[in-house]
């Protein structure tokens, strides 16, 4: 046999892929308890057609493979379901078929067949049903037609082409007529005349068939004629069975006619024809006689029909055989099916390259149109101007339609996820259902391809990390089955795809912890992250939330690649979620890559395009405006709703002209652009229209210019460069330090210097505050709830007694009695016990970079003051307050107060202390205390940093004061590390932590700390330091 052209093979491959997709879809539907019969049929047809097609295209491996699959599959014909193991087998089979199609050698294990498939031999009923419902398609008959291609046509004569053509046309017409009449009869809308006509048609068909020596056709027609004999004579009624047989026969005739038309052999029908004839004869023989007259007798017919049932089964047997004959022959379907489909299906395949070039031409046509329009505006010629207007309308319409040619429903991609989710849920032993909404949403084919991988990744992530195992779900009070919803819709000229799962969601703390571990952010940054920023961490390169790496996902290349890929096509990814309640990922992508809405701006002599998606807003500043452009260290900034917005002068970035810095006395146009993590404004000379542009890539020579994303041709034929917003920001050296808040940077402060305070109101005109790090919770209690035990006031709180301390009382402010119904309480943990610090009102939290200064007059419970520009804030020390109120300082280690008087070394230099503390507030406070005393203080933010410093400077470090709870490496771990290293294992270690209950103390001592203190009064700390101070250095 001749081989096929590359094109034909490609076409077959596409078709084969589609068939496999259909089969897979069917299998998955079966798995999801879809309607068995429908699924079965579609799967069977897919396998079957695939087998046939591959046979014809000489994909013999594939043919053998699918044949085997089909045979196994047939075994389930009479069943109502297929066991999971088999569905898996078939799914594997489809996968293998894909590989085979791609030319891989696959050894496939059909093992399951041996034990079960054999005893599920097909039974006739289902087949009969299939036939009854007219399910037997031309496709299934086609194999017969193709069976023995080499043999000659059965017609003995050489019939001239034109005669043959006429004959065939007549045959087709007759078959059509017969078919119509049979349908009427089936609907019981027949009379004598109709039956006569039918009989005549069949008769003439028989005649002409024999005349041209098409014996098979003649035989069938003859049998049909005979079977109708009794009906025509008016003695018998046509039974449904007979009608079925007649329809069936007609199909065979049709198939024969197609065969003849192609002048191919009809040997394949050799087996079929006798079966058909036999079936027809059988059916007609069993027709009941027309009852003599009465209605009663007509009614009794029903019973007779029932009595005929065994006979029907016999006929069905025949039909089954017919069917089997059809099936067992290797199918050679494709061509015939296609011929048939060409009439029915109104779509054709067109190479994408052709569409692309059409698009390009379209673009040019639009340009010409624009030129014509511009010209027509200048002329007085009315006729020409009306013609050009029509040209305008038509071109726009063509353009619109042209766009649609590349559009494909997103369902094409989304439906593949059914399989992904099914397989994964199986592998992961989770129960997951996938809901797809908006599968009909259309978008550009190239975009569809581009979102496929990212989406797959997201869906896999959801399955792997999102959805919990059924056990855990039950514990959380969720239904066993997790749901992933993929929703797609159009919104504002973009396609939105949302992937939502009801899994465990994202835990901000876990994310942050992970990010710190991986060194993506520092612990100091971590404290300042908003929820959104924390979620964004997941997109950072090298980030993976999976606790352990599974083979499903979590290779650490995940979400950052997703984001990059989506952004590459001009889309955005957003992530939101609630711990415990699931995750939602929202992807927005443009409708099409080819055409992008963009804002045209003028700058210098050139016009430039900025993609609309990157533009946040446009601002125009004229000399009368309230807010003007200000210069900050030589860079222009603009106050936009209170925030400082960095500005970039495009003229300067592009080096086009000197560009005066004098923005104050002219109108300035600012386009505010969004560069992922921050916004900035670009100053342009002029803002023009928004237009749809066709993005054309730049020459390789210019690719390295990062400010441009491409070029486009505008309506007037001029060229405009398209800006790459990220590129501009890089050129202007904005946002160099990742996600750092620009405003903070301008102020010259690092984020890590921020300390957070809780503002409280007391019976004092001055505002008070306490460090937020102390605070466990904020509560409000009814005054009635307060109980008294002696002088002490307490509240039942979470099954414990919460002793209350009134700050007013402790600080000696006036105390009002029983006036308020509610008390505001700051819950603070000290030494493993909770205390309630009672205040008048909890005002707010605030962050400041201003340092806490020691109070002028020492007062127990007051830590220091903060002088902001506006006011003085008193910072209280809640630990000291609690200690004072409950006199629990007694449990603290007692120090000889004389220790404090001990001189600190000869030169007044007290030696060097390494302070390890992650909280800014404490770090500053403790450092200040130590420095005041005369120690030199080195600072580390966490255990890791401390070890680094220690490694470098251990020789001069005399003592280490460390916090316990720290990111990256906590105090315990650090202590163990320190004790391991002989170089500095002897350095005294002092733990100072707000967590100081028994367990912590014990663990602290076990880890190698020499002393464990609660965060407390400076004197105690200093005394402790003196106590621990290394002997030899004391002497020094």
């Amino acid at each position, binding site marked *: 046999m001749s081989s096929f052209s590359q094109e034909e093979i490609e076409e077959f491959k596409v078709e084969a892929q589609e068939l496999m997709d259909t089969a897979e879809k069917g299998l998955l539907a079966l798995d999801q308890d879809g309607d068995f019969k429908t699924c079965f049929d579609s799967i069977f047809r897919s396998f079957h057609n695939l087998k046939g097609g591959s046979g014809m295209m000489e994909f013999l491996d594939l043919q053998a493979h699918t044949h085997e699959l089909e045979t196994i599959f047939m075994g389930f014909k009479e069943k109502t379901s297929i066991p999971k193991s088999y569905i898996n087998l078939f799914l594997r089979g489809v996968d293998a078929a894909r590989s085979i199609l791609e030319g891989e050698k696959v050894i496939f294990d059909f093992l399951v067949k041996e034990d079960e498939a054999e005893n599920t031999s097909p039974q006739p009923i289902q087949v009969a049903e299939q036939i009854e419902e007219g399910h037997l398609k031309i496709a299934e008959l086609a194999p017969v037609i193709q069976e023995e291609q080499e043999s000659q046509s059965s017609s003995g004569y050489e019939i001239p082409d034109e005669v043959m053509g006429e004959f065939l046309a007549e045959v087709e017409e007759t078959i059509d007529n017969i078919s119509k009449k049979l349908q009427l009869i089936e609907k019981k809308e027949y009379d004598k005349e109709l039956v006569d006509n039918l009989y005549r048609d069949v008769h003439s068909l028989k005649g002409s068939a024999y005349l041209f020596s098409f014996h098979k056709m003649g035989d069938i027609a003859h049998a049909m004629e005979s079977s109708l004999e009794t009906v025509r004579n008016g003695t018998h009624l046509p039974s449904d069975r007979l009608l079925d047989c007649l329809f069936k026969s007609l199909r065979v005739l049709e198939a024969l006619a197609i065969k003849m038309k192609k002048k191919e052999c009809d040997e394949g029908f050799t087996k079929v024809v006798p079966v058909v004839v036999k079936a027809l004869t059988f059916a007609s023989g069993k027709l009941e006689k027309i009852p003599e007259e009465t209605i009663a007798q007509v009614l009794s017919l029903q019973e007779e029909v029932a009595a005929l049932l065994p006979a029907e089964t016999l006929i069905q047997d025949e039909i089954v055989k017919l069917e089997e004959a059809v099936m067992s022959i290797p199918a050679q379907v494709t061509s015939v099916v296609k011929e048939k489909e060409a009439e029915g299906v109104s779509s054709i395949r067109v190479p994408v390259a052709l569409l692309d070039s059409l698009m*390009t031409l379209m*673009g*040019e046509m639009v*340009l010409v149109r624009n030129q014509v329009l511009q010209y027509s505006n200048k002329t007085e010629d009315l006729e020409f101007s009306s013609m050009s207007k029509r040209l305008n309308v038509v071109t726009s319409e063509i353009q619109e339609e042209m766009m649609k040619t590349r559009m494909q429903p997103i369902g094409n991609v989304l439906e593949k996820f059914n399989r992904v989710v099914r397989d994964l849920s199986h592998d992961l032993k989770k129960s997951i259902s996938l809901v797809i909404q908006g599968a009909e949403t259309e978008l550009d084919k190239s975009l569809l391809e581009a979102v496929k991988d990212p989406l797959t990744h997201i869906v896999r992530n959801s399955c792997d990390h999102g959805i919990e195992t059924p056990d855990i779900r039950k514990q959380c009070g969720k239904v066993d089955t997790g749901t992933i919803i993929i929703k797609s819709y159009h919104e504002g000229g973009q396609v939105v795809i949302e992937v939502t799962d009801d899994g465990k969601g994202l835990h901000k703390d876990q994310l942050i912890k992970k990010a710190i571990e991986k060194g993506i952010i520092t612990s100091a940054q971590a404290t300042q992250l908003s929820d959104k920023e924390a979620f964004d961490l997941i997109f950072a390169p090298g980030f993976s939330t999976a606790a352990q790496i599974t083979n499903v996902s979590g290779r650490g290349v995940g979400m950052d690649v997703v984001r990059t890929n989506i952004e590459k096509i001009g889309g955005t990814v957003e992530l939101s979620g609630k711990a415990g309640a699931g995750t939602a990922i929202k992807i927005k992508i443009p409708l099409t890559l080819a055409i992008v809405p963009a804002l045209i701006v003028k700058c*210098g*002599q*050139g016009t430039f395009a900025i993609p609309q998606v990157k533009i946040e807003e446009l601002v125009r500043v004229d000399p009368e405006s309230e807010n003007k452009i200000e210069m900050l260290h030589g860079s222009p900034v603009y106050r936009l709703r209170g925030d400082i917005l960095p500005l970039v002068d495009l003229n300067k970035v*592009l*080096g*086009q002209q000197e560009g005066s810095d004098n923005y104050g006395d002219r109108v300035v146009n600012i386009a505010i652009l969004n560069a992922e993590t921050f916004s900035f404004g670009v100053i342009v000379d002029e803002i023009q229209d928004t237009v749809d542009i066709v993005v*054309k890539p*730049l*020459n*390789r*020579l*210019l*690719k*390295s*210019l*990062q*400010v*441009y994303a491409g*070029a486009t*041709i505008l309506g007037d*034929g*001029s*060229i*405009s*460069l398209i800006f790459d917003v990220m590129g501009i920001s890089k*050129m202007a050296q904005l946002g160099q330090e990742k996600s750092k808040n620009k405003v903070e940077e301008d102020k010259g402060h690092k984020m890590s210097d921020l300390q957070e305070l809780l503002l409280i109101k007391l019976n004092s005109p001055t505002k008070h505050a306490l460090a937020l790090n102390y605070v466990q919770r904020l509560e409000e209690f009814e005054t009635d709830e307060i109980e008294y035990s002696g002088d002490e006031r307490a509240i039942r709180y979470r099954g414990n007694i919460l002793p209350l301390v009134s700050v007013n009382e402790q600080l000696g402010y006036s105390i009002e009695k029983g006036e308020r119904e509610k008390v505001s309480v700051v819950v603070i943990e000290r030494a493993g016990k909770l205390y309630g610090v009672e205040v008048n009102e909890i005002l707010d939290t605030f962050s400041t970079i201003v340092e806490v200064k020691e109070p002028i007059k020492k007062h127990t419970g007051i830590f220091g003051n903060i002088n902001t520009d506006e006011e003085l804030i008193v910072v209280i020390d809640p630990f000291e307050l609690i200690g004072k109120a409950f006199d629990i300082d007694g449990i603290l280690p007692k120090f000889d107060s004389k220790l404090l008087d001990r001189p600190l070394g000869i030169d007044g230099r007290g030696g060097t202390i390494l302070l390890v503390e992650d909280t800014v507030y404490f770090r500053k406070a403790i450092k200040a205390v130590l420095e005041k005393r005369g120690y030199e203080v080195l600072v580390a933010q966490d255990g890791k940093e401390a070890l680094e410093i220690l490694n470098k400077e251990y020789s001069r470090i005399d003592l280490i004061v460390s916090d316990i709870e720290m990111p990256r490496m906590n105090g315990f771990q650090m202590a163990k590390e320190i004790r391991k290293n002989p170089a500095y294992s002897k350095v005294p270690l002092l733990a100072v932590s707000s967590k100081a209950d028994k367990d912590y103390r014990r663990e602290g001592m076990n880890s190698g700390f020499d002393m464990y203190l609660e965060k407390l009064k400076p004197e105690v700390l200093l005394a402790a330091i003196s106590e621990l101070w290394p002997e030899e250095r004391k002497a020094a």
Partner: protein
Amino acid sequence: MSSSGDSLVQRVEQLTTFYVGNELFGIEVMKVQEVTGNPQVIPVPLAPEFVRGLVNLRGQIATAIGLSELFAQKKSHDDLSEMSVVCKSEGNLISLVVDSIGDVVEVDGHKFEKTPDTVPQTLRRFVKGVYKMDGILLSVLDIETIFKELSTDSESTSGRS
């Protein structure tokens, strides 16, 4: 220009010739898509000096490269008489801006010689070789080489801007 196509000793090459400054250059005729007049060039800020800008060629965007800038020659001409030789390479359209256009000549192999070493490096890296014509030497440019050389050039300079 003289044509020496009558003696087909070796392979015969057809070249489109043009002048840059006083020098005669040629490019393989099959590589040339068209020769146009003086189209409107949209400058590309920040691009290397030899990139004149972008040109709209009936809906296709071509990059215009000034050969005199590329060869570091002094401009001794007025811009109006300039011509463009449009070539295509790997799907990229490039429009070489030259001072004036010569004939299409047929040259044969035995008149070909390697570029002499004295030719300055700025030029030599683009020139494949020289044909000895009557009264003038014809330098053959290789469009692929120009592309390659320039691509690496612009990549290495990009970081600085």
